[in-house]
């Protein structure tokens, strides 16, 4: 103990002496490396990561993981480096001794992308034997990506001890990746590695096999080429599945945006150019709900969308009823005037929102259950798109049931089919008109809640959907909800299969041309309503 103390006193004196020269020369290479974190130079940080990771010191893991999370603090004046723990306690990174507090002059060590990759690689080999299953799996994946020779030994020792099947596979793949790129691996080892990577069969595997270079034995190059071919074939099949999924997803967005219009335009025959602004109002309602939740009840954030849906319906629906009562009811049967009036109204609404909320985008967050993605075979399905598809179908089903089984639905259909007859049967047609318009607007508001998850919440939100919505309704057949459904999904899928071939711009043009041609042939859309329904 006394020797330890005197040694430390000695170091203290030495460091006091050295501060004058700003030369942080401590005892060993590990301490030297740690001090380099304080230089705020990316090249020094990279060197330090390498030395620390391979030092075998028990401090290596806390230091590197703190670096990754931005918890590694360095003081540029004293060249001291600290690790702040997640519990708020801090230690001196060079010695591991606890410190009372990190000085204010210290700031987090900065990273760039190159360093983030080194950190990942270093953490990968350090956490291969972590007790946590997910961490081990992630570690194996990052070793697979970085495939550095130094990681071979840790991978092999981890592989020997591993019991979990999926981690074992991942480790095997990581080992194969390292061997494939190692210059002194034998031909047999490399051939085995190619086979293992081929079995993995995803885009990462493809990347690895394509990048092996030309300095390999001929048999390995040949095996790799055939593996690349077979992976590409499988991926081509999957890419068709992927396009179909993207088409469904785009179709669901189109359907959601158009479904309200299918009621106001399709059922009532009102050319409502302000439909997009109802969507926008729904999106801004979501924003307001989230703002209130963020400031008052942060725990409820994951439920914000569920709260926003009924509110958006009410707000947009009320605005819709107001518009119908104050403007549209005077313009029935005069489509041109309606078009101009609602278009003007859309500009007024946009500018009103711009004045109240400002012209810039507003942040609407994704609840945790709507962020991220999962892999299904070789395609990535994002949760937000999946939930929107489910939500759209639910809205569609509810709306259909409402029109079919409720009194209001019956009245609506009656008024649409024959206004005068309905009136003489005692239905208050003007009340039904207002409610129908309110319903269409309210559903547009609900669409706004969902669209706020994938698009900008800005005053221009509505504009980008209005043309697509009209296209869907006209294509599907005016006055028919099923037509809207089929129309939206047809357009979505056609668009997504055209896009990879023709590009996004040409794809969109091609779709428009196809619709124009289609309308020439069938002016009333896919599913034309028969009989006297379309009066005007």
């Amino acid at each position, binding site marked *: 103990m006394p020797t330890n103390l005197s040694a430390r006193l000695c170091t203290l004196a030495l460091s006091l002496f050295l501060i004058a020269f700003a030369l942080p020369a401590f005892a060993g290479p590990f301490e030297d490396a740690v001090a380099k974190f304080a230089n705020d130079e990316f090249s020094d940080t990279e060197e330090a990561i390498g030395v620390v990771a391979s030092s075998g010191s028990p401090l290596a893991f806390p230091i590197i993981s703190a670096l990754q999370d931005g918890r590694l603090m360095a003081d540029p004046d004293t060249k001291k480096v600290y690790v702040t723990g997640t519990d708020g306690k801090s230690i001196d990174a060079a010695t591991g001794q606890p410190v009372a507090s990190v000085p204010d002059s210290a700031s987090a060590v*900065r990273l760039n992308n190159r360093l983030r990759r080194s950190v990942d690689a270093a953490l990968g080999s350090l956490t291969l034997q972590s007790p946590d299953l997910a961490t081990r799996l992630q570690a194996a994946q990052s070793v697979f990506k970085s495939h550095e020779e130094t990681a071979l030994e840790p991978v092999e020792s981890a592989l020997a001890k591993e019991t979990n099947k999926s981690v074992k596979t991942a480790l095997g793949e990581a080992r194969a990746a390292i061997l494939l790129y190692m210059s002194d691996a034998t031909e047999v080892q490399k051939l085995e590695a190619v086979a293992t990577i081929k079995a993995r069969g995803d885009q990462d595997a493809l990347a690895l096999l394509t990048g092996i270079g030309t300095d390999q034995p001929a048999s390995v190059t040949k095996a790799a080429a055939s593996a690349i071919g077979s992976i590409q074939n499988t*991926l081509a099949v999957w890419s068709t599945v992927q396009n179909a999924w993207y088409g469904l997803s785009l179709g669901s967005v189109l359907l959601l945006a158009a479904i309200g219009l299918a009621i106001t335009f399709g059922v009532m025959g009102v050319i409502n150019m302000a439909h997009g602004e109802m969507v926008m109002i729904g999106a801004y309602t979501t924003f307001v709900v989230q703002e209130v939740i963020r400031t008052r009840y942060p725990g409820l954030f994951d439920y914000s969308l569920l709260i926003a849906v009924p509110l958006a319906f009410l707000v947009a629906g009320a605005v819709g009823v107001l518009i119908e009562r104050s403007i549209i009811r005077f313009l029935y049967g005069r489509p041109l005037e309606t078009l101009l009036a609602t278009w003007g109204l859309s500009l007024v609404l946009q500018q009103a929102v711009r004045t109240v909320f400002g012209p810039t985008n507003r942040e609407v967050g994704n609840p945790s259950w709507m*962020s991220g993605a999962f892999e299904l075979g070789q395609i990535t399905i994002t949760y937000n798109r999946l939930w929107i598809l489910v939500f759209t179908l639910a809205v569609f089903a509810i709306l259909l049931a409402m029109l079919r089984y409720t009194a209001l639905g019956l009245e609506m259909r009656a008024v649409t089919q024959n206004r005068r007859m309905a009136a003489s049967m005692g239905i208050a047609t003007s009340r039904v008109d207002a409610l129908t318009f309110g319903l269409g607007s309210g559903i547009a508001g609900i669409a706004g809640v969902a669209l706020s998850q994938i698009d*900008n919440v800005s005053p221009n939100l509505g504009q980008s959907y209005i043309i697509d919505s009209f296209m869907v309704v006209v294509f599907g057949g005016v006055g028919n909800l099923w037509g809207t459904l089929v129309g939206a999904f047809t357009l979505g899928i056609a668009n997504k299969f055209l896009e990879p071939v023709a590009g*996004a*711009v040409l794809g969109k043009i091609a779709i428009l041309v196809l619709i124009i041609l289609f309308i020439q042939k069938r002016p009333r859309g896919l599913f034309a309503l028969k009989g006297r329904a379309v009066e005007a």
Partner: protein
Amino acid sequence: MLTKSTHDIAASFSRRGVLAATAGLMLGLASLTGAKAADDTIKVGVLHSLSGTMAISETTLKDTILFLIDEQNKKGGVLGKKLEAVVVDPASNWPLFAEKARELITKDKVAVVFGCWTSVSRKSVLPVFKELNNILFYPVQYEGEESERNVFYTGAAPNQQAIPAVDYLMKEEKVKRWVLAGTDYVYPRTTNKILEAYLKSKGVAQEDIMINYTPFGHSDWQTIVADIKKFGSAGKKTAVVSTINGDANVPFYKELGNQGIKAKDIPVVAFSVGEEELAGIDTKPLVGHLAAWNYFESIKTPANEKFIKEWQAYTKNPKRTTNDPMEAHVIGFNMWVKAVEKVKSIDPDKVIDALPGIEAPNLTGGVSKMLPNHHITKPVFIGEIKGNGQFDVVWKTPSLVPGDAWSKELDGSKDLIGDWVEKKCGNFNVKTNKCLGSGS
């Protein structure tokens, strides 16, 4: 005052022919008295969209000029006169830009105009500024290939943003494969043409370049992000150079984040994404993606900290962000003030001749200089997106980069220079020693 005169015009249109003539006479008188009133103030035109699609970006620039005029007036104005802003709203409507510019110059008699964002709006007002001989300060990074006598370009030319960014990716990230993704209009198309030529001159093969254009406001990025992922799995380090504009960025970055494309695998460097655009998204999944600009709010210099403090006090919003085009306006405004004070006149001809050579400090610690080609010298920074929506500068050019009006990478323009001091020409061919003349 402005609304009143607009009302006058509207009224004059509604009257019949004979009366309209009288009204026109009255208007003429009104503008005469207006000219008289201009004796005690100098009018500065602000031509930025306050409504429509571009309002998201341009409204801030209008506020910036109002703020700068306010500050200048506190210091006593210019030439002993107060500055007075004349704000008009061209409503993101390109032909309206030309109309409003004409109104500013002929009716309001402004001494200078600060305005425009998109290249098409600039092109739309060019003939007006030429015809009526006035001055436009254009603050946005653009595709280059232009040098006009009446326009001063304070934003970045491609060699002050795109080329250094690509150099950074090549050197620092060892990128070998490139996706050039942009919105389908003139700025991305020209920039990508320049970049493609530059990359090929650096030995990048055709099959390692993927070019992709999307419509304005594109919101369904699933296919393109999946394509980028696929393109990136060819065993070579891949990066995306994004000239995606405006609103389309938010869904693009959201899709990147959701599909799990991390900056350390495929970094995206953007030329049109700044602090304002990031305000609409959760940036945690985007940490490490890059942007190339000549200014970042997070740069710690005394000048920048002072500017941010005063700006937030002026707007009464402690969270109000600052961005690159704002800094361009700050530099441009200060240059104009210096030039006016140098020649002691607001006469456009004199000011235009005085501006080249004028220096003004930028907010990041250097001194920018107006060049004979009407572009300025600027530093170039590469910033990484941080979790809080700000940028962390990871690289910068060692010195200020002079802006090239004509790209050296394109066959059509590599022999051209703009020089309004000696050659009095915006497109002088140094090979043939001839000025190609107007008509850009």
